[in-house]
């Protein structure tokens, strides 16, 4: 085991031995190369900033596994995974631009302060040229702003709020994951097809930004299909027992409950809803249904039996049969013994996309990378042909509508794909009202 040497900054290897001297630091100030943390030695350092403590620690752990795998593949170890199926062939398995990839890790704790502290230490101390990871939109937005300021690239991990590439978008930040709007747009037709167009929906929404955007997206898409929204209630983030939010649903004439919750909130609200027998009810002569707009396999596990038959959307699932997904699942499964989560997938892909962009640009300079990624079209990464849109740095690709599997064969086999919603159906204009406000600004090299 020799990978992950404790290099501080590549530049020092050559320059430091010369003796004492005052220099401007390599970060936050332009040097000869003109950008923050330019790797000048034989290695390049990436920063993997994931939640390692707190409620999303499992997702963070899975993200970290994916990054380690990506680093292996970039450095030419292992079976290469998606590098073999990726439509761009710029990556050669010799690191990035011939420099061996090394990495540092940090704990975001799913708090924006801690996440920024961790990212800063990667930039200031370890000389990371790119930061990636995260499992919540609050953290993604906070770290993205930091990277913009510091002049490094941010490749977002799992972040689903519209704001990340909406009102809080930044030129140095990129998101491969899908968003609230896409969830709504993909889900609504499937819901209409399965549950009919004459439905009354009741929303329980987590009382913070991601909850707001998801509620808005699902509401407007389903209403466009003819559904009626009879009630929306905001629930506190710290809520654990949702019974008092669920019993009023019994009293309303709603026949669908939409749970705009994620993580622990989702596990608890769904468990509670099923406990109260909502799924066995008949309202307005129809079977009562529950919808979870954003699914996570790791979290679905926490809800156990309760997810069976419940519709939701997800960015990616390991049971996809395309070549890229298969290759990724195979190399991940071989290394760790179980299939990867959607968080692992998006992180792995982001790492590869970044490396590829650097290769194509021929430079680590953020502005060059931004240029290479903007408008980049690729395939073979699991979601069909994908576009990194230049206007908002959001990936446009197919979205999966899934539902909880009735007869899971293993603890990983909890969701089944109902429909792969084609990218055109989830596309929106960059100035769509749900994404209004904010501006990308210009890319920042840190000069």
């Amino acid at each position, binding site marked *: 085991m020799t990978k992950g040497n*404790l290099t501080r900054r590549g530049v*020092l290897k050559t320059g*430091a031995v010369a*003796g004492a001297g005052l220099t401007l630091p390599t*970060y936050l100030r332009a040097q000869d190369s003109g950008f923050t943390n330019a790797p000048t030695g034989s290695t390049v350092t990436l920063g993997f900033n994931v939640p390692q*403590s707190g409620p999303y620690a499992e997702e963070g752990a899975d993200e970290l596994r994916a990054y380690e795998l990506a680093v292996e593949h970039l450095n030419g170890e292992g079976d290469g995974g998606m590098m073999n199926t990726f439509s761009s062939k710029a990556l050669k398995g010799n690191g990035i631009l011939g420099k061996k990839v090394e990495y540092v890790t940090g*704990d975001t704790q799913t708090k924006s302060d801690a996440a920024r502290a961790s990212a800063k230490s990667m930039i200031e101390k370890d000389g990371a040229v790119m930061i990636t990871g995260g499992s919540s939109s*609050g953290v993604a937005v*906070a770290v993205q702003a930091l990277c913009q*300021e510091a002049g490094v690239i941010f490749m977002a991990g799992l972040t689903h709020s519209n704001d990340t590439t909406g009102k809080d978008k930044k030129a140095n930040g990129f998101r491969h994951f899908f968003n609230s709007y896409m969830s709504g747009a993909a889900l609504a037709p499937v819901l209409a097809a399965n549950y009919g167009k004459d439905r009354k929906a009741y929303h329980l929404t987590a009382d913070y930004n991601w909850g707001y955007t998801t509620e808005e997206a699902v509401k407007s898409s389903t209403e466009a299909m003819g559904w009626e929204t009879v009630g929306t209630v905001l629930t506190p983030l710290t809520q654990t027992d949702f019974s008092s939010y669920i019993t009023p649903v019994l009293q309303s004439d709603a026949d669908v409950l939409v749970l705009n919750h994620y993580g622990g909130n989702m596990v608890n609200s769904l468990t509670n809803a099923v406990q109260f027998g909502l799924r066995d009810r008949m309202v307005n002569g129809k079977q009562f249904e529950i919808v979870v707009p954003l699914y996570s396999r790791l979290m679905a596990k926490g809800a156990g039996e309760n997810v069976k038959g419940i519709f939701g959307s997800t960015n990616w699932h390991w049971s996809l049969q395309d070549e890229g997904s298969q290759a990724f699942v195979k190399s991940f499964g071989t290394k760790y013994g179980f299939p990867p989560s959607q968080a692992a997938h998006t992180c792995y892909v982001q790492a590869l996309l970044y490396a590829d962009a650097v290769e194509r640009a021929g430079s680590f300079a953020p502005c060059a990378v931004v240029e290479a990624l903007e408008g980049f079209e690729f395939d073979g990464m699991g979601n069909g042909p994908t576009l990194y849109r230049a206007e908002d740095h959001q990936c446009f690709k197919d979205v999966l509508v899934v539902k909880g599997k009735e007869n899971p064969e293993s603890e990983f086999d909890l969701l089944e794909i109902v429909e792969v919603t084609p990218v055109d159906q989830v596309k929106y204009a960059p100035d769509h009202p749900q994404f209004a406000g904010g501006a990308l600004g210009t890319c920042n090299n840190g000069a």
Partner: protein
Amino acid sequence: MFGLNRKDATLLAIVAALIVFAPFILNPFPAESGWAQFNAGYPDLMQRFVIFGIFAIGFNILFGLTGYLSFGHAAFLGVGSYAAVWMFKLLSMNVIPAIILAVITAGLFALVIGYVSLRRSGIYFSILTLAFAQMSFALAYSVLTPITGGETGLQLALDDPRILDAAAAGGNIPVPSLFGMEMRDSVDLTFGAWVFTFNFGYYFCGLVMLIAFYLSIRIFRSPFGMMLRAVKSNQQRLNYTGLNPRPYTLAAFVISGMYAGLAGGLMASMDPLAGAERMFWTASGEVVLMTILGGVGTLIGPVLGAGMIKYMENIISKINSDILHTWFAFLPDGLEDVVVGLIYPFIGKGWHLTLGIVFMLVVIFLPGGLVQGGQKIAAVFRRRSANAGGAEAEAAKQNPAE
């Protein structure tokens, strides 16, 4: 010197020296060595050390002197950060107005909460402060999103008015500065294999902390400080001595709230983003733990406690298994895996475990906190010199424990 006795002046000088030379002290390992992981001398962490040091110093003025245990002090830090960021958004990227507004806002907030909470004492007081802080957090995270930014925190935007500043150049948001000196400006000193970073923002925070520390010494040694200790010692006697304890405790509460606001304002100046989780009860609990860990009622203890906790959070949490493997690569393969397996639970994602163990060990073996640990070490040295010489130790004994 500065109206301090010799002992306090020495302490102040030591703190000043620590602040000035921190970039050296915190980077003891050559940048390329395996131990560089333990280096803490990079701007962000050094800034955090002093900022949380200020927070803890202020908290100690209330808790250490009066014994009133506030479990909601993070609310003042949060309010201070919000005030500062709003100042950046509306007025100017200069940190001075931001910090001033942060201190004033936090002070007013503390005045209101303190006035109500101080009607009760003991655990009833603690729970009142906790309730206020939790309410602040919950509202800031949800209902007050338009003012606080909610989950994503309050951030600067390109189209902020910034009345006093000229229009932003280019497509990037300007950064906080002090009359043109940007907080993030840094200079590297390369010395052989060592690299030391001097950051303007850090020295600005350091200067502020030195002033805050000096003020806290003055408060500790003042009649006001004595009255606060009297409050802790015997409120009944204080009442029958013709003194009203309430304004004293309220003043202490407001002063420590202003310290928290100062810390919040500085935090926003170093990194212009204010998030609601800064006000969560765990954040309030953290400053309590910092103070107790360092030594309640001592001058320097809270700063040490703050440094300890922040060091663990930022350094231990970043060690991953790969790094462990590089450290122990010299061992035979089987043994290497065993050693790494033994240490692994305590580092990286297990840093909380190490933190918990440190809390327990310190409180079990050093009832007076880290300061007592320092005194014990000092006592060992004194004993040695006493064996050699003699008279010096006698002088040391006369010096009452801090």
